C-alpha cells in the first residue's frame, strides 16, 4: 500500500448560515479537488475528493454514487460508488479498478494526482437501504465491494445487524481489512469466498438462513448478480427483498443532440445533449408554462406537428405516445421535430 498524500485545507468548524442551504449543498456539476490517492491492490486505486475550500459536502444515502467527467471534453462521464457511510462528509471516496480498455478507469489511474481539479456531479442515490429492514445480507463481488462497504459502514454506525458475503480473488480484494474490522462487531458477520463454487455454496446457505424481514443487496460482475438473483428466488425471496446494483449505474442519459423547428416563426433551435427542449425554448423566447421539470406534472406538454419523438415522461398514455402529436418538452427528445408553437 503506497503512502497517501494529503492536501491541507479542511475547515475545522464550518458554519451554515448566510446563504441558503440548498444552493450551498451542491449536487450539480462542480469542481472538486483530489486530496488523496492510495493504491489498494495492484489494479485498484482509492481516490478522495474534497471541495476546493475544504468545506463540508452534501451528505448521501449509503450506496450512492458520484459522476466524474473523464478527460477534458466534458462529454464522457462515469459513475462511481462512494465507499463511506455518507454522514456529513468532508470528502467523497471511490475505489476504482483499472480496466485497461482505455476507458474512464484508465484515465483516473493515469491522470489524477493530488491537488488536481476534477468535475464531479452528485451524489445520487440509486441503491439505498430499505429503511425498515430487520437485517441486511450484503453481497460483494470483486470491486463491487464499494457500495457494499458504504452500506456496511452505515449499518455499523446505526448499530444494525448484517451478514456480508465477499467473493474475491486472493491478493485482489480491495477493502478486505475494512470489512474484517467491521465484522468484529457482534451482530455483523463476514463470509469470504475465493472461487465460483465457494461463492455459490456460501450464497445458497446464507440466503436460506436469514431471519424474516431481511433485505439483500448485491454489487459485482454480471454473472455473480445472476447467480445471486437465481439463488434468492430458489430460497423463496420475493423480488422486493432482492436489490442489486450493476457496475454501470443506469443514469438518465443525456440524449442525442437534435434540432427543433418552431412552426409560427420558422426558427430552428438546437438542443444539445444534457439540455432539455424546454430550456432551449425558454432561452429562445418561446413561452412554455412548466412546473415539475421531471416529466410528471404534464404542465409543459406542447403540440408537435411532425417528427419522431422519444417519450421519456410518466404522463402520456400509450395511445397518446403513439399519436405522436404531443410531447413533454422537459424530458422528451426526438429527431426532425416541428413544434406547433
Amino acid at each position: 500500500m503506497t503512502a497517501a498524500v494529503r492536501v491541507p485545507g479542511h475547515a475545522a468548524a464550518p458554519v451554515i448560515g448566510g446563504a441558503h442551504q440548498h444552493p450551498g449543498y451542491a449536487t450539480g456539476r462542480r469542481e472538486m479537488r483530489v486530496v488523496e490517492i492510495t493504491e489498494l491492490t495492484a489494479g485498484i486505486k482509492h481516490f478522495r475528493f474534497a471541495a476546493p475550500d475544504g468545506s463540508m459536502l452534501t451528505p448521501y444515502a449509503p450506496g450512492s454514487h458520484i459522476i466524474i467527467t473523464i478527460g477534458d471534453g466534458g462529454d464522457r462521464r462515469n459513475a462511481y460508488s462512494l465507499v463511506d457511510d455518507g454522514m456529513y462528509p468532508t470528502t467523497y471516496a471511490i475505489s476504482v479498478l483499472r480496466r485497461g480498455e482505455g476507458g474512464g478507469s484508465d484515465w483516473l489511474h493515469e491522470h489524477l494526482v493530488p491537488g488536481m481539479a476534477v468535475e464531479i456531479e452528485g451524489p445520487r442515490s440509486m441503491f439505498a437501504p430499505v429503511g425498515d429492514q430487520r437485517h441486511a445480507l450484503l453481497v460483494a463481488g470483486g470491486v463491487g465491494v464499494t457500495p457494499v462497504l458504504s452500506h456496511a459502514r452505515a449499518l455499523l454506525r446505526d448499530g444494525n445487524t448484517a451478514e456480508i458475503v465477499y467473493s474475491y480473488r486472493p491478493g485482489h480484494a480491495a477493502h478486505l481489512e475494512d470489512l474484517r474490522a467491521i465484522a468484529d462487531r457482534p451482530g455483523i458477520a463476514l463470509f469470504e469466498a475465493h472461487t465460483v463454487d465457494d461463492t455459490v455454496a456460501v450464497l445458497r446457505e446464507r440466503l436460506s438462513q436469514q431471519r424474516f424481514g431481511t433485505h439483500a443487496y448485491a454489487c459485482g460482475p454480471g454473472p455473480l448478480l445472476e447467480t445471486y438473483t437465481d439463488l434468492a428466488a430458489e430460497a423463496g425471496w420475493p423480488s422486493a427483498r432482492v436489490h442489486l446494483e450493476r457496475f454501470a449505474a443506469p443514469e438518465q442519459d443525456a440524449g442525442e443532440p437534435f434540432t427543433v423547428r418552431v412552426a409560427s416563426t420558422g426558427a430552428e433551435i438546437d438542443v444539445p445533449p444534457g439540455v432539455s427542449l424546454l430550456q432551449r425554448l425558454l432561452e429562445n423566447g418561446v413561452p412554455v408554462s412548466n412546473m415539475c421539470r421531471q416529466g410528471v406534472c404534464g404542465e409543459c406538454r406542447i403540440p408537435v406537428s411532425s417528427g419522431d419523438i422519444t417519450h421519456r415522461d410518466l404522463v402520456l398514455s400509450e395511445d397518446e405516445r403513439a399519436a405522436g402529436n404531443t410531447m413533454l418538452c422537459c424530458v422528451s427528445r426526438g429527431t426532425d421535430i416541428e413544434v406547433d408553437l
Partner: protein
Amino acid sequence: MTTALSVPPIHALKGRIAAFPYPFPEDTYRYSTNVEPANTPNTTAAGGWGATIIDIDEDYHAELAERATVLAADPTRHAVLPHMRPAAWDAMLTVMGELAGAYPDRMSLRNLGGDVWRWHNAILDDTREFRYGDEASLGQEPLAYITTQVQEDIALLDQRNEQLYVDAGVVTFAADWSFGFDVGMSFLEIHGPVPRVRRDGVITRAHDFLKRLQPHQPYRRTNWTLTIGHRLDVSTERYPDWGPDREMIQSVADDEFGRLVNLRVEVQHLIRLPDSGALMFLIRTYMLSLEELATVEDWRVRTAQVLAALPDDMAEYKGIIKYRDRAARWLTEAAPAATGGHSPREPVPGLPEWPTVPPAVDVTGASFLIVSIGQDPQTSHAARGWVRAAESAGPTRMLVLDSLAADADATALRQAYGELRTGSRILVTGSQYAVMMALAWAYDAGAISAELTAFVTDLGDLPMYCAHCRDIHRVVGAPGGVVTCPGCSRRVQIHGHHAPRLGGFLASAAAEEPS
C-alpha cells in the same frame, strides 16, 4: 354552542395578507400534481410568498405555544417508528440548516467537530449542544425538538419496495385527518378516500414523482380547504370540538360569517433527506378570513368562482359542502345563489378488497405458515386446501387458533412469526377481524405484501381504531355504521378507511347523535 372561536386582531392583518400563499392560479380548481421547485418567490395580487422553505411570521410564538398545548393533551400527534430514528435526526439537522440559511441574524448551526453541533435560536433564546444521534445530549427526540422551533408540521416518509410510508412525524395542525391513525400507512393507502384522484391518476403520478425526488432538490405544492374560526387543529381526534361548527355557521349573521370562515392553505414542502433517504413533508398552515380575502379584489372574485364551481364530491371530501355555497355567495355578494350540480356519490374507496374464493398458494415461497383462526367450517376448509398445495412446494406449518382476542393465541401467533426465515410465506384465514389483525402483526414481524395471502370467511366483525381512545377494538359492524366504542363508550362512526399495517378501520365521533 359553547365552542370558542378566535378572531385575530385587525392590526396584524396587513402583513398576513401580503404574505398569504393564495392557491388558485385559475378560476376552477381540480386535483393535480401541482408541484413546483421550492425557493422560487411567487407573486400574488397582494404581495408574494415562497422565497424560503421555512417561513417564520408574526404568529411564531402563538403557533408554537398552540402546538405544545396540543401535544401535551395528545401524545399520538408525535410518532417515530423505530427504523425512522436516523431520519428524524436527518430531518432536524436539515431544518436547522434551512433556518440558519434563511434567518442568519437570528439562527445559527455550527459544527463543533465530529458529531457535535451547536444550535442557537435567538428568537426563543434557545441554545442546544448535541451529539448527532444521541437523544440524551439533545434532551428529547429530535422531531419533537425541531417542531418547537418551526411553525411547520413535519411528516417523514420512508421509501421501500417502491412505496412510501408515513412512518414518523409531529402533526398538530391536521386538516380533517388523523396522524395517529395514518402512521405506518402507505402514501397510496392514505389517499384512498380522496375522490377523483385515483381515477385521474393524480396520486400515482405524485407517488412516482416523490419516489424519484433527489436530495437538495426541494419541491413544494399547496392544498386548501375552508376552516371555521382561526382553528389550526382540526384533526379527526378533535372532531367533537369543531364538527358542530359546520352546522352553527349556517345560522350566523352575514358579517359574522365573513369573519369566521377562513380560506385555509397548506404550503407543503417535499424534501428528500440527504443521509437517511427519507422524504420530509413540511406542512405549513395559513388562514385568511373571507373578510380579509375580500380586501384583495382579484382574490374575492376568483375564490367565489372556485367555490361555486367545485364539484360536490370534492366539497364533500373537504368537509365544506354545507357552507361553501354560502361562502361563494358571500364573496360574490349580489350574485345569484350557486347551486352546484348533483353528481351521484361515487363508491367509497379505501375498503379492503377480499377475494371471494381462497387465493392460490404462492409456490415461489420456500416454506409456509398457514394460520386458521376460528371455528367457521369455511375457514378450516380454506386452510386445509392451502396446506395440500403448500406441502408440495416446501416445508409447511399449520397453526390453528380459536381467537386472537385470547392472549395465549396471540402469543402463539407472534412466536410463530418470530421463527420464520426470509423466503417464507404467511397465509391467514378467519373472520375479517382475525385476518386483519394477523396481517398487521405479520407486517410488524417484518413481512411485505408479497409474502402475505388472506381469505376472509366472515365480514361480520372488524378491527376498529378509535380516534378518541386511540386503541384498536374488535367490533361487530361495517364501514359507514355507528357503534359504541368498547374502549371509551362514545358513539362512533366507522369510516371506509383502513390501515393495513395498524390492522384497523378509522372511527370517530358520530356526527349526529341518534335521539
